């Protein structure tokens, strides 16, 4: 059974339309959400979190519509976005102290272990962190309350190659516990390394939402790398 279902998500802005976006996520799988800048990745993710109101379409988690079950659903999902700083002048320790009571499932041991893994200092404020450390700080909060679905908006952007590799390994470990991970990226090697499924968006439309192997069979030409296939597809989509 799918853990997240997106149906016909449509949102029109002047000059851009997110056009009938549909896909689903299964538990224990990692889906890479790929598309160039401005393709609609962040709008889709924000619509999945009720931060943006689609003109049309449905978002369901665990078989429940997001609308009307927002608090219950958000308790079971984790979200992290790139390098945005929440409360840049507050210490990480203080942000954690306020955030923790919102989640019955908050796990201090898990929090401490990610804190050590990411080499974060709780007494620092987000404004004292580098971009890469901000990404880790946001991830720390998303990972500490036992979420069943992780929605991560460009979690690897700004990370050094070692941290990126570490993070993708962490994704693998988390997936083994049955958690679904949905992460947007424009770094194709991230997808190659850890994604089970590919959701490819271009100009506001889903081009493919299928397992990675199926994507290779359908869209990759002999001898072509995944990156080359995406570049060719993107050019084709843009030329169309």
């Amino acid at each position, binding site marked *: 059974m799918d853990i997240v279902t997106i149906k016909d998500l449509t949102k029109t802005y002047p000059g851009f339309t997110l056009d009938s976006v549909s896909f689903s996520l299964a538990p224990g799988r990692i889906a890479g959400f790929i598309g160039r800048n401005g393709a609609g990745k962040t709008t889709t993710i*924000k619509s999945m979190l009720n*931060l943006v109101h689609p003109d049309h379409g449905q978002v369901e988690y665990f078989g429940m519509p997001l609308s009307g079950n*927002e*608090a219950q659903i958000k308790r079971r999902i984790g979200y992290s976005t790139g390098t945005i700083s929440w*409360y840049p002048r507050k210490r990480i320790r*203080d942000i954690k102290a306020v955030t923790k009571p*919102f989640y019955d499932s908050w796990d201090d041991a898990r929090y401490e272990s990610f804190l050590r893994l990411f080499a974060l200092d709780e007494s620092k404020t987000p404004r004292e962190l580098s971009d890469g450390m901000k990404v880790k700080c946001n991830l720390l909060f998303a990972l500490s309350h036992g979420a069943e679905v992780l929605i991560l908006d460009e979690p690897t952007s700004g990370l050094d190659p070692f941290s990126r590799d570490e993070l993708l390994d962490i994704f693998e470990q988390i997936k083994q516990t049955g958690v679904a991970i949905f992460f947007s990226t424009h770094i194709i090697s991230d997808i190659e390394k850890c994604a089970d499924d590919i959701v490819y968006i271009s100009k506001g439309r889903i081009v493919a939402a299928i397992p990675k192997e199926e994507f290779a069979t359908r869209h990759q030409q002999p001898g072509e790398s995944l990156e080359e296939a995406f570049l060719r597809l993107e050019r084709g989509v843009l030329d169309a």
Partner: protein
Amino acid sequence: MRNLLMKEMKLSASILSYLFIAFGLMFLLPGYPILCGVFFSCLGIFQGYQNAREANDLVFSALLPVSKQDVVKGKMLFACFIELCTLALMAIAMLLRMTVFTDSVVYRMNALMNANPFALGVAFLIFGLFNLIFIAGFFKTSYKLGKPFVTFIIVAFVAIGIAEALHFFPSLEALNAFGTEHLTLQLSLLVAGVLCYIILTWLALRSSMANFEKTDL
């Protein structure tokens, strides 16, 4: 809701939100437009909103496991907390001026508005106007702070000017009662002010929740 209030107090608020509560004690100042204390307390809340906006507070809050309507309720609850703390200081100052300092020459010679229940009622009214004009105005966009605050400043100072001027009109002298004079009228006006505060805050909350629900963050 308790968790949201804690978040407002510990993460979203500015230190000025708390410090400016002390302006409630302006009710002790003789020869000064004492209702300006309300404006300064509102300025403290405004500073908190400015801080919160720069700290991406609304998006952080909307991602917590609460409904978007609860996010607005939390912010309104915090504003009411600051306002009621200020009003409590004003009430203490008012009671001191009505009882302990009733024979004080500086208060007897006061040319401006006396700290009495009518003044406290107007303070409730102006806080209610702040909630309706500034807070509900802010939630129309969840971003623009300047226009609703400037609008509030204009309305607040007009209200303060009218309240200060009223007792100079014939037959309205009782509005500036000293000590326990005209107590029934004074208390009725206080109750009217409290009712205005409740109604205006309720209208502000309803409008803010409806607008925030529709806003794309």
